[in-house]
């Protein structure tokens, strides 16, 4: 399943927390022109280095699909950062 929501939460030393919710699909849609350029650049790089471009795209997709469930929490004293992919 493609990631749907990325949550980034930053707790500052003063205890205030700043949550940031990133809906992946709308962001991808907004950035789709740039993504198209990026895909073209990847394809060109694949052809230059003689790597199978279909394999690269397929495995990049698998990587993206496997992201949900990832959770990274880093705390240092009263400061903390949480990144969660759902």
């Amino acid at each position, binding site marked *: 399943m493609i990631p749907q929501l990325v949550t980034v939460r930053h707790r500052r030393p003063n205890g205030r927390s700043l949550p940031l919710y990133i809906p992946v699909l709308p962001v991808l849609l907004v950035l789709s022109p740039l993504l198209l350029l990026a895909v073209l650049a990847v394809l060109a790089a694949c052809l230059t280095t003689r790597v199978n471009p279909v394999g690269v795209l397929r495995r990049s997709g698998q*990587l993206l699909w496997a992201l949900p469930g990832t959770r990274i929490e880093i705390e240092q004293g009263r400061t903390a950062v949480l990144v969660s992919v759902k």
Partner: protein
Amino acid sequence: MNEQRRQVLQMLAEGRITPDEAERLIDALDREQPESSPGATRAKPRPRYLRVVVSSADNFGGDGPGRVNVRVPLQLLRAGVRLASLIPPQALSKVNAELNKSGVPIDLTELKPQHIEELIEQLDDITVDVDQPDAKVQVFCE
């Protein structure tokens, strides 16, 4: 009555098998039954995540103790390995040369994707605990 036994009796009723065949099939089902009975020990569910927890009592910068908690789906590791297997050999030889320069003589071209896949498969059973007075590291699958 379980579904398979019912199917055997149904086939017997329809005349598709003889009573002797039905008896043999039911005997075979009975032999299989103890292995698949509900009372038997259930297979352990496969872990889905690799978890790394690091707790440190060190007071870096006077900010208090630190803690890192990372949960990575094992599927993500597999996907990463598959993607990394596409790195062209010329790039790997450059990496090898740099590793050698840094005093890490590892030949990455010898590291085959299927070996890494096997390694990830066996990660299920791994548990690493490092305990120090001021720090603790735990790596396990859940």
